[in-house]
């Protein structure tokens, strides 16, 4: 895993501090060319991994990287699925089952449909998960996706229900079908780690908010500190700037102060900010 990963919130109108800023970003990145420009800036700064949701618009980015593979040697995608708003909106309109049905593969598909229908009817979660994961990952075909993540809203929803078996089902599915490792994004990392270990997932890849002010670090900073220093999981820190509440240097000094944290994911829109963050992390990492 690379030390620095590039995130995608800025491309899809997600900003935890300001709706105005989110809208400005949504406008700026309306055309996928603007997204690719920023990814190229990041690439030029030495960032080779793009951690991204399975938002429908991402398929255009995937197309670009497939077509111009030779321009970006070593480029990796870490898909994060599902794109939850899609399901939430569909569930409000079609009901839970209707929503699931609407996202099962449509094309080539007599087999897939039958299988989906069978999986639905038999309450065969493994089969259903395989189809839904397949539908989400279709856009990444032919690209390097060594780690595939379950988004925090899905992880934490299942975690709350106590549906721990789902994590195992997901991990098995991405390993067997995509030869990839499973990752889990969460706002409740200490609790998640215990449950993952319980279903036999050892040394899991966990991506969680880790920042100096404890923003969305549920379970408390002490539990996070213990989890990090015990080294029982491979950690990716996200929201390290706490949505801009922390100055970059102070924020990164805190996170880089934990040698156990394997990687840091951040999003930015300007070459200057990308360069500054990358250089700060590199500097703080080498100096350890």
């Amino acid at each position, binding site marked *: 895993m690379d030390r620095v990963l590039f995130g995608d919130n800025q491309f*899809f*109108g*997600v*900003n*935890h*501090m*300001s*709706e105005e800023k*989110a809208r400005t970003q*949504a406008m700026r990145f309306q055309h996928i060319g603007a997204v690719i420009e920023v990814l190229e800036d990041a690439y030029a700064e030495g960032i080779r991994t793009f951690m991204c949701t399975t938002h429908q618009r991402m398929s255009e980015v995937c197309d670009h990287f497939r077509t111009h593979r030779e321009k970006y040697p070593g480029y990796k995608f870490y898909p994060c699925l599902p794109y939850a*708003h899609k399901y*939430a*909106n569909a569930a*409000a*309109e*079609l*009901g*839970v*089952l*209707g929503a699931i049905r609407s996202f099962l593969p449509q094309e080539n598909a007599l087999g897939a449909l039958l299988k989906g229908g069978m999986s639905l009817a038999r*309450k065969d*979660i493994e089969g259903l998960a395989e189809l839904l994961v397949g539908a989400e990952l279709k856009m990444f075909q032919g690209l390097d996706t060594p780690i595939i993540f379950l988004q925090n*809203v899905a992880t*934490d*929803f*299942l*975690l*709350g*229900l*106590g*549906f721990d*078996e*789902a994590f195992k089902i997901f991990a098995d599915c991405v390993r067997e079908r995509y030869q990839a490792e499973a990752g889990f994004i969460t*706002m*409740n990392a200490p*609790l998640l780690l215990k449950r993952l270990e319980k279903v036999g997932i050892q040394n899991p890849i966990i991506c969680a908010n880790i920042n100096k*002010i*404890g*923003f*969305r*670090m*549920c*379970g*408390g900073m002490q539990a996070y500190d213990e989890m990090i220093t015990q080294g029982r999981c491979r950690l990716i820190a996200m929201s390290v700037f*706490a*949505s*801009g*509440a922390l100055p970059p240097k102070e924020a990164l000094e805190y996170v880089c102060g934990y040698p156990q944290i394997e990687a840091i994911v951040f999003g930015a829109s300007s070459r200057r900010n990308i360069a500054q963050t990358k250089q700060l992390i590199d500097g703080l990492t080498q100096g350890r």
Partner: protein
Amino acid sequence: MGLSHQSIANAHPEIELKAVCDTSSYVLDILAKYTGVKTYTDYKKMFAEEALDCVFVATPSRYHAEVVTAALERGLHVFCEKPFALDPSSGYLLAALAESKGLVNQVGYHYRFIAAFNEAKRLLDLKVIGKLHHVRVEAYGPVVLRPKGSTWRSQKSEGGGCLFDYACHAIDLVNYLVGRPISVSGTVLNSVFSSDVDDEIYSTLQFGDGFYGQLATNWSDESFRKMSVKLSFWGDNGRINVDRQELQIYIRTLPESLEGFETGWNTRYTTELTAPVWFYVRGEEYSAQIDHFVHCIKTKATPLSNFRSATDTSLVASLMRTDAEKPRTAIESPNEQGGAAASPSSKPATRSLLGRLFNAGRS
């Protein structure tokens, strides 16, 4: 909502989830198989067989009153999804029943648990922007984006429509922050895509003493990623804009007692205002409201959002529906003689503003 509450409640250290009840045996079978929870398809049977302290009711709105009544009669504390009772008179009866039995009653108006709105409440209560003369509340988002949909949300008889969804959140926040309006007027309930229900609501609110407001809600706006609620307040000493992310306040004359603010614009962000929660699924407020419910049961406190306050919200919404049926003041084109010609679409009861002005001008 039911599954989301289940996930959050199940993760609460002081809640032991005993059973769930749903009409979908499909979902129940999966829950039973993978989470081990006991399941029912008949809530009456569940109430009779399980030793319960409290219940979360997240059925379609029109069943709320029936299930809540049964729960209260069993002596259970109740958390009910909004909009609580669709009929205000039944809502007030349920509030009285819960109060008379000393049972904690809460309604899922989760915006009352968003830190930025609570900071706005604090500043409004301190009268930092002076005497209020206007509030504007807006709620937009992408729920109904095409003319279809088969769930209860698209049916009027089931309590569907934007009025008892987005608009109720907006009304409830206004009630929470500045008190219930004393009248509504000029209400528009309009359909954009839905055939049976409204997709957008606009209304004028009156609070008395020269304080008015406007409400604008529309759940057919795809330009928003998810529901977005914003309020703006104007007072004689400044202005507040607030949404879930941030609070902006403009202060003309800084009150001496107010620390941490300056004259002119000030901004407070959610990151600094939001208190941590023990478990996070989809926003701190969803966790905070459930923790609050537990806290109220333990301390016998009255919840921030209760049957009575939620019924106040339903009452305002119902009055908006009535108001929307009232005649409008039509603007009619003057005829060649300079008088007013009745527009073909104007109803008999419609008063003609332009006509009266012209007539007044001639006399």
